């Protein structure tokens, strides 16, 4: 085992009093790939943001090479030898590989002119050391996602980072590309770098990681050597809690098939996705980030184009070219990104709730204010939205209440089918329970619900049927009671 280079002890971070991580411990050593494992919302990304200087911890200490440090900014953390390779690589598409690598810290000739030769030489040297095949003069826009990842790694090396954080680097790569990446990572190990590797894929972790730390619900659960570690043990640490009494599914009578997808595909994204959604049923979609669940839904609703497949409503084929076509057929969609796609934060609660059904509130060209207010009151009341007035701007509400506004907005449509993408992501426990109660109530009233979730307890507790997706394909279907958390994870990761 190499020397300890980074040590985090008792790190906590609260956002406006809400816990993101608490009592986090982490020890990274030179020449070691350290896997950070946890479900979505376990606190991994907060951890990364603390290390890269985006967030400052509320409590706890970070020691770097034995000395206690604080990271004031991303630049500061970089200067101290930490660099992160994000899932969404942020680059300059119109510039060359070399330029991207050196942006912000160009090599200069006598302190004046940009020294292209020196920069190209340095990049070439790193590229050769890593033994990767990249045209260092190519424009980033012409590279594949995998190549862009490699560019980020070269960048990390060019600034001589000692600690390289990789946030799900393999989620966008093909098997061959993953092999290439691992080869590069092994080189980094040999060069004495400490690598923090975030991933769900146990098979990969077994191949590449030396050590692991497990997080759950923003807390440190345990750590250990990857060698001889048992996947089942890790999964158990990861999921931990029993599927609690929180999710007793009401006894909705499941009716006839309402919405059916046959052989849905979008080339290169997902393939041959077939499912049937019945009235009164909650159909859960489980899978890893990037498995293609949201993409299926987007294509289903006509936001993205599908390349083949058929959609049937009440047994009749339909064509949905845009969300407005879906709305006309009373198919509602609660998107994952509440802030960007769900609500307009600068507008009033009233304007948000009535957005989808405004047409029905109009008399001639005019909106009937009293009808509008009544409708807002009705659905905000149903959802128990806490606000001082319905004229209040939505940005003044808490995250949980904002999510309730999004749900109220779609309830107002009186949907037959409701598609929900991560309906309880990033909201507090109380609101979560309320959302679950509403899902059940809707189902009991005969609404067909398709819910995407990355939270295993939620999926298992809420769904009548679970579909697991892996790499753009349906990897398994389970009726209620057929699956437990371990089966789901194994199906989703291909173990």
């Amino acid at each position, binding site marked *: 085992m190499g020397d300890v280079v980074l040590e985090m002890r008792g790190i906590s971070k609260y956002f406006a009093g809400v816990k993101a991580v608490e009592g986090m411990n982490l020890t990274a050593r030179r020449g070691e790939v350290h896997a950070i494992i946890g479900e979505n919302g376990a606190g991994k990304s907060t951890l990364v943001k603390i290390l890269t200087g985006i967030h400052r911890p509320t409590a706890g200490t970070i020691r770097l090479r034995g000395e206690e440090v604080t990271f004031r900014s991303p*630049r500061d953390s970089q200067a101290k030898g930490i660099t992160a390779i994000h899932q969404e690589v942020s680059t*300059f598409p119109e510039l060359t590989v070399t330029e991207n690598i050196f*942006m*912000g*810290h160009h090599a*200069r000739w006598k302190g004046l002119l940009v020294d*292209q030769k020196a920069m190209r030489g340095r990049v070439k040297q790193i590229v050769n050391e890593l033994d990767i095949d990249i045209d260092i003069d190519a424009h980033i826009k012409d590279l594949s996602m995998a190549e862009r990842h490699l560019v980020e790694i070269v960048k990390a090396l060019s600034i001589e980072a000692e600690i390289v954080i990789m946030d799900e680097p393999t989620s966008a790569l093909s098997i061959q590309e993953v092999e290439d990446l691992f080869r590069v990572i092994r080189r980094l190990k040999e060069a004495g770098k400490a690598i923090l590797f975030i991933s769900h894929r146990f098979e990969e972790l077994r191949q590449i990681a030396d050590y692991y730390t497990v997080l759950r619900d923003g807390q440190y659960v345990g750590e250990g050597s990857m060698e001889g570690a048992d996947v089942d043990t890790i999964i158990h640490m990861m999921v931990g809690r029993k599927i609690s009494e929180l999710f007793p599914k009401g006894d909705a009578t499941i009716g006839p098939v309402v919405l059916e997808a046959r052989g849905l595909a979008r080339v290169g*994204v997902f393939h041959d996705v077939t499912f049937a959604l019945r009235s009164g049923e909650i159909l859960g979609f489980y899978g890893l980030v990037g498995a*293609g669940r949201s*993409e299926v839904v987007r294509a289903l609703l006509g936001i993205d184009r599908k390349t083949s497949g058929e959609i049937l409503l009440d047994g009749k084929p339909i064509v949905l070219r845009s969300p407005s076509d879906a709305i006309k057929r009373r198919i509602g969609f609660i998107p994952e990104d509440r802030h960007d796609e769900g609500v307009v934060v600068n507008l009033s609660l009233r304007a948000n709730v009535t957005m989808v059904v405004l047409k029905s509130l109009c008399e001639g060209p005019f909106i009937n204010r009293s009808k509008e207010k009544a409708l807002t009151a009705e659905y905000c009341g149903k959802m128990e939205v806490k606000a001082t007035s319905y004229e209040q701007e939505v940005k003044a509400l808490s995250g949980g209440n904002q999510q309730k506004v999004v749900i109220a907005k779609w309830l107002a449509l009186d949907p037959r089918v409701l598609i929900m993408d991560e309906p309880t992501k990033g909201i507090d426990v109380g609101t979560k329970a309320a959302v679950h109660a509403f899902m059940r109530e809707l189902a009991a009233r005969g609404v067909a619900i398709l819910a995407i979730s990355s939270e295993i307890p939620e999926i298992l507790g809420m769904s009548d049927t679970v579909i697991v997706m892996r790499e753009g394909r349906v990897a398994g279907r389970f009726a209620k009671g057929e699956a437990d958390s371990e089966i789901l994870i194994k199906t989703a990761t291909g173990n």
Partner: protein
Amino acid sequence: MANKSSNQRIIKLLRRRETLLVAIILFLVVAVSLRAPNFIGFENFSDILNDTGILVIVSIAQLGILLLGGIDMSVGSNMALTSIVIASLNVSRPDLPMASLIAISLALGAFLGAFNGFLVAYLKIPSVIATLGTISIYRGMTFLYSNGYWVNSYQMSEAFKMIPRELFLGVSAMLWYAIAVAVLFHLFYNRIKTGREFYAVGGNLEAAGFAGVNVPRIQFLAFTLSGALAGLAGTLYVSRYAIAQSGTASGFEFQTVAACVIGGVSFSGGLGNVPGVVLGALFLGILNNALPVVKVSPFYQMSLQGGIILLAVILNTLGDRNTRTKIIKRRDFHE
């Protein structure tokens, strides 16, 4: 092997916007000369180039702002204000050396540009709005300064009128200025760290910040440089045409934007270079001079220019879209 790579190089060269522009310009020159053979006569052609020199300089000023994803609508009024100040200075103090007038115009222009830069970089006003505002301010000040009077040719010193006309190695000073600006700025955008950072800010504002680029500083600098060039151009303008009035260079900003978009500069920032802009300006300059030769009324010039801007923007967008869908497809594939 060697053959293949040289073939590829030729294909690459042919695909470049600059090659296309050179071809179009040559075609234009040949076509016009067929109708009016003295169009490519030495005298006429050096006139055209001298006319275009100013456009080249100011278009390069505009390039810096467009690279950042902004726009500078005030270059024309900056030229007007600088030109009237410099011309009046020449009238009241004919003894001042010409080099000092050039220096003053650079400084005054830079100051006016810096005001734009302050509004955009530090007060966070969108550049369209900020520079629309300063158009009025600078134009109004030009009028106030001149009190509505013109500074005429006979009031200016001979040396002043010679500023752009001085010959060096058989080439006029006007062209030397344009060449110097083009070379210096080409160097700046390609070989100076700060210049490269223009591309980063325009290409991806957020990522530029993460990479440690001081974004407001770059924005401020861009407007200041743009202003300095506009100031220089103002002096060249007034000494070349030997008249200064409050309407000087009115609407010049459109020509500069046109030269840029023809030269392949993208409105959304991060894309464009000096050679393209120089060729774009040359194309416009030659076209403007060719119109009277082929008996097109000069009154058509404006609509033609607008049409060219629209066409160039549409073509750029369609081209962009092709690459964009390519990227999106890639992303989709790997998501």
